[in-house]
């Protein structure tokens, strides 16, 4: 489970909630982007947050970095509550919690050189340095993200670098703050496939060498398995499952996790349809009660459609938000043990009350 030696999480969120209020015709309603999320990041570990587009994962990154204010919930940094009101408090938080964006080009100002971007970061977090000290700091940052020789990269513009190099510069920028927590919002989604591994390995080395806590947000559950110690699966603004990456990918508990795993193309399995393919993500505007995955879930019954399940522990550091794991007599029967084989096609799982 937790590999942290001191026992205190670097960053912890409890009940994190974000509702975007609507204007105009839909005034009074709100988009429930994130609902009641508990998250824990420990130093030297990677937690993966997996979900599809619109599930709220990027919003969580922005909430944790204080870029947008939260609607409800608590945030603690090394046990101390975080307010983030006012510039000083924000800067203090930023010096310990850094964010890496998905699009490596968009996150670097195209009119500034690498030197300028990194210098600003250093100036903000390390104060004013003498020019030779500054140069040394820039070189050190670039070396740490494996952009060597640093002289070759320091005066380049973003458009002169490849996608992978840009992302490394973005990582270098965030390292200037010497952060304890790195929130990586889909850091490799926009990179060429051959480059992805390199960047992931870089993040891994940051975790091991600098004991940084990393939140790895992605829609690709396979890379979570490779890279993360713990995985949390998110759907429609809620955490639907969490546990160690191994457990989740080998024996998923929540039907959505199962769906994610099954969605990876498998040349061995024939064409296969499940009822879940037919649905789509629910609208997050003032969602009704009931499990938000019910429309796509092959096991959903009336209970699922009427009452919202809580995140229920299912032993050994795992939890799932599914009525199937509760003690209630009217719970659905959830059986995810069907292997991905020819025998399963085309399956329909009938519910029994």
């Amino acid at each position, binding site marked *: 489970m937790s590999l942290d030696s001191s026992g205190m999480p670097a960053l912890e969120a409890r009940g994190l909630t974000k509702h975007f209020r609507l204007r105009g015709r839909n005034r009074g309603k709100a988009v429930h982007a994130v609902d009641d999320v508990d998250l824990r990041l420990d130093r030297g570990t990677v937690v993966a947050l997996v979900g599809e587009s619109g599930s709220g994962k990027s919003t969580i990154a922005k909430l944790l970095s204080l870029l947008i204010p939260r609607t409800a919930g608590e945030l603690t940094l090394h046990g101390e509550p975080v307010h983030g009101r006012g510039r000083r408090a924000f800067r203090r938080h930023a010096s310990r919690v850094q964010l890496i964006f998905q*699009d490596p080009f*968009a996150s670097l100002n195209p009119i500034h050189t690498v030197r300028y971007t990194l210098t600003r970061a250093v100036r903000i977090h390390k104060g004013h340095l003498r020019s030779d000290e500054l140069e040394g700091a820039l070189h050190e940052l670039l070396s740490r993200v494996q952009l060597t020789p640093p002289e070759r990269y320091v005066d380049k513009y973003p458009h002169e670098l490849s996608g992978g190099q840009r992302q490394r510069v973005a990582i270098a920028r965030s390292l200037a703050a010497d952060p304890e927590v790195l929130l990586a919002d889909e850091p490799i989604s926009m990179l060429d496939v051959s480059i992805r591994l390199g960047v992931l390995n870089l993040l891994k080395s940051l975790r091991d060498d600098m004991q940084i806590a990393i939140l790895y947000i992605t829609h690709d559950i396979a890379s979570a398995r490779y890279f993360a110690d713990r995985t949390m699966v998110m759907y429609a603004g809620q955490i639907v499952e969490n546990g160690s990456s191994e457990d989740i990918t080998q024996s998923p508990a929540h039907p959505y996790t199962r769906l994610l795993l099954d969605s990876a193309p498998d040349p061995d399995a024939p064409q296969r349809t499940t009822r879940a393919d037919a649905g789509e993500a629910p609208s997050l505007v003032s969602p009704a009660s009931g499990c938000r995955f019910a429309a796509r879930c092959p096991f959903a019954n009336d209970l699922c459609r009427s009452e919202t399940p809580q995140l229920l522990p299912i032993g050994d550091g795992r939890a799932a938000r599914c009525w199937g794991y509760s003690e209630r007599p009217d719970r659905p029967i959830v059986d995810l043990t069907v292997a991905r084989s020819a025998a399963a096609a085309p399956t329909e799982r009938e519910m029994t009350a």
Partner: protein
Amino acid sequence: MTVEPAHLTPQEMDPPNSTAGVARGKVDRASQLLFLRNGKVITGLLILAFFTLLAIIGPWVAPYDPDALGEDSVAPPSLQHWFGTANLGQDIFSQVLVGTRSVMFVGFVAGILATLIAVLVGVTAGYLGGAADEGLSLLSNVFLVLPALPLIIVIAGPLDGANSLVVAIVIAITAWAWGARVLRAQTLSHRRRDYVEAARANGESTPRIVLAEILPNLSAIIASSFVGTVTFAILTQVTLAFIGVTGLDQWSWGTVLFNAQSNQALIRGAWWWFVPAGLCIAAVGVALALVNFGIDEFVNPRLRATGKYAKALKKRGVRARVGFTPVDRHEEPSTPVVPASGTVLVTEES
């Protein structure tokens, strides 16, 4: 090193977080030099420099005092009077020469003032959003819709012979709204982009974000807006002088035309009285427009690339279309002519 004329979207329609391979605006030295190498821009700047020089040295270089009376009344151009004379023998050439100063002065001062206001209002509105944005937008829209010329007339008319500075200020007050609107739109677009969020997440302060991150990205638009405002200011100053709003003691190209009009120059067929002044106005106007075109082409590489290679394509018998990369079906694939973005489309038999 070569500049990639990669697929850039035009100013007003930049999508947020455009994908990899996008170059934008004044990115590096080579691109800046490309801007200056543009023939249109050079021509425009040269003309402007010429008139600025005239504005400065005009009164000293003029052969006659513009008000000095002479003998030949309404005489056509001659060696002594290059532009002919007015009704009381005044030398029109000197009048036009001396008149250059107030025109250029008002033009540039009004341009600078108006652009400053536009940047202040537009960028603030775009960045802050919310109530500040609504209020400032309302202000700009009101000034945008109010008809400029009548407003200026109503303000400056009662003043007895307004001097150049007052005229410049009045023009600036009516002319800033357009630029403010464009800048607000652009700032809004940039505000949402990742690099601004990244700067915020890094702990960058708001003034620094606006001034050092967003503003440089807007430089081309600001330049273009400035040029447009100067054009408007010059035309307006001349018009005001023509109507008689600015004092008659201040020489301007418009004053020359005013005199021409009041003395029935048209009926008399005294074309030399008003043609030179008009041509000067046109020359400055065209020069400014050329500079504006240059900025436009520079910022939007789609225009740049297609125009640049149009001649080369023409030689091969291919009609250039914006955004399309022509491929010659009849030859072995060698080097493509245009590295612009877009899909393969048109070929024509040579």
